[in-house]
């Protein structure tokens, strides 16, 4: 009896311990379905033989699903609170144009491929990472082992949007944040630095 109760206690302790230490980040089915639907919608565009159709399709999807305003402010880092309303009015549309171009460039890498959602990890209930992989990629090719991550943001109203995309641990908005803050800092900080950033973006977009 004594031993049995010891064992029982041990069992409880082990279970409790596992729950405490493992505490696995939970998957988020809704976010997974959301990204899978976006990927399914992207498939015909990625299958298109010409780049124009691919780019048009990616632009439509970006317009529909990526919260560019949020990403645009995020990429300003600590300067997001120091940008003037006038600057913001110019900056946000420019950023959207610039970032859409990067999305087009990056996502068309997967032209002719089919991406499928594999897993998800919720960093919080509003901040979810969804992973996807290329199915039937040519064995041994770089794409075969590549994981494409989607950072999904759940708004207060419960709507899902995309705020970043990455491949093998390298994220686009984070890279943009480091570039933008570097430009602002190296041009004397706000407000002049923000003007310099806006000028650079203008140049990039019109090129």
């Amino acid at each position: 009896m004594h031993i049995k109760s010891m064992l029982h206690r041990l069992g409880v302790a082990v279970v409790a311990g596992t729950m405490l230490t493992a505490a696995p980040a939970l998957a988020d089915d809704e976010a997974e379905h959301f990204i899978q639907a976006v990927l399914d919608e992207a498939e015909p565009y990625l299958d298109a033989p010409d780049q124009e159709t691919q780019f048009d399709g990616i632009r439509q999807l970006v317009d529909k699903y990526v919260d560019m305003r949020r990403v645009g402010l995020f990429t300003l880092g600590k300067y997001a609170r120091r940008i003037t309303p006038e600057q913001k009015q110019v900056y946000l549309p420019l950023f959207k144009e610039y970032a859409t171009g990067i999305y087009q460039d990056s996502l068309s890498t997967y032209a002719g491929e089919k991406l499928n959602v594999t897993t998800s990890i919720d960093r919080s209930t509003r901040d979810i990472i969804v992973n996807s992989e290329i199915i039937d990629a040519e064995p041994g090719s770089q794409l075969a082992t590549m994981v494409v991550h989607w950072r999904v943001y759940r708004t207060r109203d419960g709507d899902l949007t995309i705020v970043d995309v990455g491949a093998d641990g390298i994220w686009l908005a984070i890279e943009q944040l480091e570039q933008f803050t570097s430009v602002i800092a190296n041009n004397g900080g706000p407000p002049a630095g923000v003007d310099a950033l806006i000028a650079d973006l203008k140049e990039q977009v019109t090129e």
Partner: protein
Amino acid sequence: MTIKIWTLAAFLTLTVGAAHAQISDADDAAAFAEGLKNDGAADEGATNQDPWEGFNRKMFAVNNAIDSAALVPAAKAYRATTHKKQRKGLRNLLANARTPVILINDLLQGEFKRASETASRFAVNTTIGFGGMGDPAERMGIPQHSEDFGQTLAVWGAPPGPYLFMPLMGPSTIRGGVGSIGDIAMDPAVWIRTDAAKYTRYSRAGAAGLALREPLIEPLQDIEDNSLDYYASLRSFYMQSRKREIANGRTNFDDLPDIGDFEEFDELE
């Protein structure tokens, strides 16, 4: 279709070395995360890691001048005069020649299973792979992995130190730089003191430079064209890919800048 930014990202991850070594504790990843989380000032992560930015940017300019004047034209000529399969063969050959260094580092890190894989690869590829031109070991299911002394130092607990950009060496950290010197010393070919060995070393270094630069012609051009700050952009790609490498190829999502940053923007109308 042009080669895209992420191809470079993946390439960086590969060349920088897909370290599967067990890394103990507070390391780059943690330091990087610390920087990123720094009182919501996400960009300070980069600056904390790069206290020598002024020096690094000068070296970066020197590098780019050499690169566009000599390396890119050479890499283009190399591409024009060789077949894809020949270039693959040379990459294999150079990788095989690096095997002793990988083996020593596997052993120094106590990674005995990986060490035996490295030794088997060397044996197979040097014999039935025609001295390393082919990679039959890969098809036999003995995968290639990279390892270097910088990684070994990381395993031993050495801190990364500041970001460092050196002409021709590319992005690194102090630890990576010290590691490169260690790797040179570990190369058996360095210790053979004959003229023939000397020429072999120089030719190998030259060939390695070309073989490494050639597949990067488009991705690097792509990044330069698409970035507002080429230096900051490359630094970010390097730091992000290295963070993953330190985590042994696993992607750690805990270190990302907080989405709370996004959330606050709800009020920023």
